[in-house]
């Protein structure tokens, strides 16, 4: 076993941001392991993804291309990955931590009898020892796992954990086609429909969230989306108001909703229950607006304003519109 294998996710025909992060981190990990940095492309038409992965640092790209791999299935993608692992024999496999990748990564780790760190925020190699860091308990505990020698390590990394690899035009590498083994794909995907009013909170750079302090559903919809619009943000909500039925579950931030880590998180009328903090405490900057000066949200806030959200938010929206000229 040697080197690192990065699973290539694609967005609009190019390598996804998470893949650029993993290729960047993977490069230094592969060097530390004294092995190659390989990438894995699975799909029905790989296009120029392999070349793109090489431009971002991969030495060898293994491509498993087959009409049966047009859409993700656990059986198909795990079979394809195992065929590549047989050939590349990586010590470490890196992938993102989206729902699809968690489905894939846990299945692959089980089949390979590998070690698994899901939702990792760091991974390192020291003296040949591979370790990964992952939070648990709503982000309250930070755990480091050391992978046993001789067993493959599978690490699924949270977005924005690493710097993206920079593109090196004209970089050359090897592309190897690997055949999909004759494996039964038992599940069948019969439709894929974009979520209506899609709120991909996990991808948003700025999130404005509202909580019970808004008083009622009307105030939420009057104030939160308009502030979000002024900031070019997506909007979220606390569990309390989702359970009240003000806002669909899709918008819930917290331990039982989405875990987010945006550049800026604006918490409006949210007290900051442990389970909410679990979903947003790793945001780069946090603005909290709440009328209770003792609200726990202020303990994680970068900037805190004590005040009634129903008074503060219209002023904030107005100022931002004027000064950001949106």
């Amino acid at each position, binding site marked *: 076993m040697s080197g690192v294998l990065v699973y290539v996710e694609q967005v609009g025909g190019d390598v996804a941001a998470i893949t650029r992060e993993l290729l960047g981190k993977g490069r230094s990990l592969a060097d530390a392991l004294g092995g190659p940095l390989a990438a894995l492309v699975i799909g029905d038409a790989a296009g120029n993804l392999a070349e793109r992965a090489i431009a971002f640092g991969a030495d060898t790209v293994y491509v498993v291309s087959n009409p049966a791999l047009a859409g993700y299935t656990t059986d198909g993608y795990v079979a394809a990955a195992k065929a590549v692992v047989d050939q590349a024999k990586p010590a470490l496999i890196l992938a993102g931590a989206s*729902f699809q990748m968690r489905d894939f990564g846990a299945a692959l780790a*089980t089949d390979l009898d590998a070690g*698994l760190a899901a939702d990792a925020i760091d991974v390192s190699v020291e003296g040949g020892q591979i370790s990964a860091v992952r939070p648990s308990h709503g982000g309250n505990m930070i755990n480091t796992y050391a992978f046993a020698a001789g067993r493959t390590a599978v690490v699924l990394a949270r977005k924005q954990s690493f710097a993206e690899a920079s593109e090196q035009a004209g970089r050359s590498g090897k592309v190897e086609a690997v055949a999909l083994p004759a494996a039964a794909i038992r599940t069948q995907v019969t439709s894929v429909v974009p979520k209506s009013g899609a709120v991909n909170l996990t991808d948003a750079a700025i999130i404005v969230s509202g909580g019970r302090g808004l008083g009622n559903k009307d105030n939420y919809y009057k104030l939160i989306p308009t502030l979000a619009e002024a*900031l070019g943000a997506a909007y979220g909500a606390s569990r309390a108001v989702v359970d009240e039925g003000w806002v669909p579950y899709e918008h819930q931030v917290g331990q039982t909703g989405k875990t987010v880590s945006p550049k800026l998180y604006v918490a409006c009328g949210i007290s900051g229950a442990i389970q909410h903090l679990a979903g947003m405490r790793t945001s780069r900057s946090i603005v909290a607006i709440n009328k209770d000066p003792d609200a726990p949200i202020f303990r994680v806030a970068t900037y805190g304003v*004590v005040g009634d959200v129903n008074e503060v938010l219209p002023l904030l929206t107005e100022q*931002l519109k004027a000064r950001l000229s949106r």
Partner: protein
Amino acid sequence: MHIVVCMKQVPRDNSVKLNADLSINADGIEKIINLFDEYAVEEGIAWYEKHGGKLTILSLGSTEWTEQIRRALAMGATDSLLLSDPAFAGVDTLGAARVVAAAIRKLGDVDLILTGRNSTDDESGAFAPALARNLGWPQITYVGKVQDVNPATKTIVADRSLEAVIETVSSPLPAVISVIKDINSPRYPSLLKIKRVAKIDPPVWGAADLGISAADLAPAAVLSTRAPAPSRPKGEMITGGDAAAKVSALVDKLLENQVI
């Protein structure tokens, strides 16, 4: 048909502490059914009520946590099974999946397994896929709606709720399904039903019953350090003046520090 719901006991909140041996100390925090598993219990009961057969609540953990298993029985489950053994203590998610898979094989007649998308303490989301692969069964994870379970054709059709899309997937049975929060509204068991199950103790299977040794459960990812998350750097309260003045000061700060 025989439906099994896998359920984990977790602390109600995550204000846990650390023991000297790096294990988690949740003393003094109420223990509850993992929230996502409670939705799996409700979903299992609904399909059991439609098709009949048997609904077994299966849990791996301490023999002390019968209260929540009884709660699931009061909600409508017909059977329960607890996997408990000193050899299982501190087992990781992949190890837990191995233990549960052995129990499912021993039960023998299971058609469908439901569980939550992840536990709210460990949060890896690896249990359902690992269980499915151990059993050699197909899996449908992050399910927001089960459209149909058909015992005659032995198929299940379910909608997976991913970050940006809904994916409809059909699978042959037996299969493993993991569910998200808004799939249903878990029922409250009636007082009468709670009373009726108050004395039921779930049968307990240990490592020997399952033919599992501690060596089978040796993790490939070994916990080496664990520490409470560092607290965030102290922030700044914007004070002085009326709401408009505070808002101006806030926007100044955000622009100055290139937050926006």
